[in-house]
């Protein structure tokens, strides 16, 4: 009997912990054991809600180039570019990930301006080599990773403005905006909103960007018309860029090659600016500003105190500017924020109603064992909710449905045990031996009968890895967690509760057989 009380303590502590974790809004805790004001142990938990619940945009992009024209690294860099721009919009909750070797999945939760988001995402990278003659090294150090305004960006912005005006004109003339709309959604013309201008228009709160640098200094708010820096060459002029280790010095450097057209511009410019810095700017942001050592008509090396990672990163950024991967939208979904919220509230309400019916049924049909099963079911529910926050499992509507169905089937294990128990009692066994037999014999049935559904969950999970069927994964995960957890709660937790209850009043129960539901 004693070890059942020990189990009871364990179950109660576990349930209390799970209950604490699953309190809505609880984000975990940190513990400072040695009072040095540095947390020694931090437990972070959070609710991860799917886009179909919070609302937002989900865009699946496909690289619009033959698969042999780019590598996975190039695609990763394209994804990094998308990520940087999306963060520039102030959407810090966004997730951007590669899907296979040809696709990028972008998820933008919350209320998002769709047109702006599409433009930002589909924009290809703009790489510029910019004349930085006369800029001192301290300014360069301050502006690394900060916006710099250039002639090329200004040109692109003007072109965009013209396109917008033309669209307005067409709309007025024809009453429809189709042609111009097409021009606007064309990836190349969409690409014309540069980060340089985005950075000023959309400076997000919390992201500390300096005002863009111009020839005359940082651009003030009223400082329109300040001369931008001269763009010498864009990424089009670059044909290759790789990170290498210099065999003599052992230093990491980036070797780049130019196209013929690029060389025609780059050679004379570098020749007449030896000793001056030249800025490398990606999407309006200053990456680095090496000093020109020599005339470079066909290519050259960029050296500096690069670590291996930095050199590879810069080479990749140069390549992504040289080989901009156009991205086309392959699937798109947009969920209104209130719609998902309503559906969740309805699902939760349905879940509560369903659980109450199940609890009532078990109590009336199985009496005292039913009470133990009900307590175990409540433990099962809080354990599930805690696991969803601990892993965390992204909760979508199908995921919530999978969880609810797992509640419906969770009592199956208990039913198997209790039916056995009744049989053993009918065969004339005493209460305690009947209980032992019920739990012993039902275990293999419980295990076997759950296996087929767990296998199916595995197959469904893999099916859900297909970009177009991702909604399935959530259902498979929560149902599988529920089934596995149920093996624990249906047997161990129910047994603990039942033995403790029976231990407290075994005579009373043995005298009143109806309490056992027989």
């Amino acid at each position: 009997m004693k070890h059942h009380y020990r189990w009871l303590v364990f179950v109660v502590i576990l349930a209390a912990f799970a209950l604490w974790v699953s309190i809505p809004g609880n984000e975990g805790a940190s513990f400072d054991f040695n009072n040095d004001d540095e947390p020694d142990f931090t437990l972070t938990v959070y609710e991860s809600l799917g886009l179909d619940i919070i609302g937002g945009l989900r865009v699946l992009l496909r690289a619009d180039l033959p698969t042999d024209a780019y590598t996975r690294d190039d695609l990763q860099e394209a994804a990094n570019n998308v990520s940087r721009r999306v963060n520039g919009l102030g959407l810090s909750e966004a997730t951007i990930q590669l899907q296979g070797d040809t696709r990028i999945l972008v998820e933008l939760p919350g209320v998002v301006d769709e047109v702006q988001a599409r433009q930002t995402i589909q924009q290809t990278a703009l790489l510029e080599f910019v004349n930085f003659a006369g800029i001192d090294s301290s300014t360069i150090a301050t502006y690394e990773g900060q916006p710099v305004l250039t002639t090329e960006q200004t040109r692109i912005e003007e072109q965009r403005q013209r396109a917008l005006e033309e669209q307005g004109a067409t709309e007025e003339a024809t009453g429809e905006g189709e042609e111009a709309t097409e021009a606007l959604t064309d990836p190349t013309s969409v690409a014309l909103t540069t980060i340089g201008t985005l950075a000023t228009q959309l400076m997000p709160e919390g992201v500390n960007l300096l005002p863009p640098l111009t020839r005359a200094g940082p651009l003030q708010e009223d400082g329109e018309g300040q001369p931008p820096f001269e763009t010498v060459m864009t990424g089009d002029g670059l044909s290759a860029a790789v990170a290498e280790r210099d065999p003599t010095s052992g230093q990491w450097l980036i070797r780049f090659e130019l196209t013929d057209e690029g060389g025609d511009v780059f050679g004379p410019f570098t020749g007449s600016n030896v000793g001056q810095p030249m800025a490398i700017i990606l999407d309006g942001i200053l990456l680095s500003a090496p000093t020109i050592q020599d005339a470079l008509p066909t290519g050259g090396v960029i050296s500096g105190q690069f670590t291996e990672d930095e050199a590879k990163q810069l080479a990749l950024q140069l390549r992504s500017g040289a080989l901009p991967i156009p991205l086309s939208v392959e699937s798109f979904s947009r969920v209104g924020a209130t719609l998902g919220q309503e559906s969740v509230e309805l699902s939760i309400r349905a879940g509560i109603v369903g659980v109450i019916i199940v609890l009532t049924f078990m109590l009336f049909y199985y009496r005292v064992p039913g009470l133990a099963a009900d307590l175990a079911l409540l433990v099962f529910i809080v354990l599930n909710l805690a696991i969803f926050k601990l892993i965390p499992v992204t909760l979508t509507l199908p995921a919530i449905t999978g969880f609810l169905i797992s509640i419906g089937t969770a009592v199956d294990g208990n039913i198997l045990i209790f039916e056995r128990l009744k049989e053993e009692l009918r065969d004339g066994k005493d209460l305690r031996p009947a209980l032992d037999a019920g739990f012993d014999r039902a275990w293999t049935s419980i295990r076997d009968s759950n296996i087929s559904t767990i296998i199916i969950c595995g197959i469904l999970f893999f099916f859900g890895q297909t970009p177009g069927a991702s909604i399935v994964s959530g259902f498979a995960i929560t149902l599988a967690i529920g089934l596995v957890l149920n093996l624990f709660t249906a047997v161990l937790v129910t047994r603990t509760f039942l033995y403790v209850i029976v231990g407290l009043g075994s005579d009373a129960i043995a005298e009143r057989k109806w309490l056992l539901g027989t």
Partner: protein
Amino acid sequence: MFNLMEKRRWYFMISGVALTISIGLMIYSTVTTGQPFRLGVDFQGGSIYEIQFEEAGANEENIREVFNSLGDENPIIQRLGDENDYRWSIRGSFTEGQSSEEVIEALETIAPVAEDSVNIEQVSGTVGQEVTRAALFAVLAASIVITGFIVIAFRTVPKRTRYGLCAIAAMVHDVLIVMGAMALFGLIFGWEIDALFLTAVLTVVGFSVQDSIVVFDRIRENIPKHVGEPYETIVDRSVWETIHRSLATQLNAFFIMIAILLFGGDTVQQFIAVLFIGLLSGTYSSIFVAVPLLVSWEKGELPLLEGDEHIAASPAKA
């Protein structure tokens, strides 16, 4: 005790009628619409716009005009909910680069749109093909793995192929019933098959096998315990012994599902409806298809299939 297995011809007849109706519905749907059931955008590619208007004014005609003006020739337009919900579902084609904002702006010429309550899905044909391929692969994998599981579960039974095939027959029965139901819902309500439908079907497969295994397990256990009893009596006893468990378990799953059907949002209702029908069929088929089939087989009543000499010779009643 009521002798269940004696009436097995009735069960076969009921199932036969249900299966004939299911297959008939799929054939009817194929003849009238070209597909056994309506394939959704997940598999075919295309766009679904669920639009919430804030006031009256929208009808099939003016929505069609808007879509035609955007270059979508043949949209399928349906009202969602009742007339005062102002909610519409429009199935259109997939146009690369067409932002849904354009579509919403165009629809605003009819009536104001509640942008917070729209639900839009656009899927290209390529993605649809990939989902279809993955779906076929999932079905194939499920068939192989479940068959393998049944073989392992019955490895200690002398005639395991027999048990396994009866469980598979019950599973195929359930899948066909679900498909027939979906063909019917497609014809009546315009419901479409999506990735979640396949999920429901495979979940039904999992539960169906689970049910059959519990009954077969008991038969296996009872045969050595009751030597000398007629086979049908042993089977009947096994069914009665497990029927409480089967019904109580299914009942609890149904409680949850009915609650979702009645009170849940409409997003997962089709999914739950399919799952519900599948589980209903699964409960029936484990007792009234898998088991009677096994009895008939053992007694040599099935054409072309040999029975068990010993069982076939035994009297029908004790």
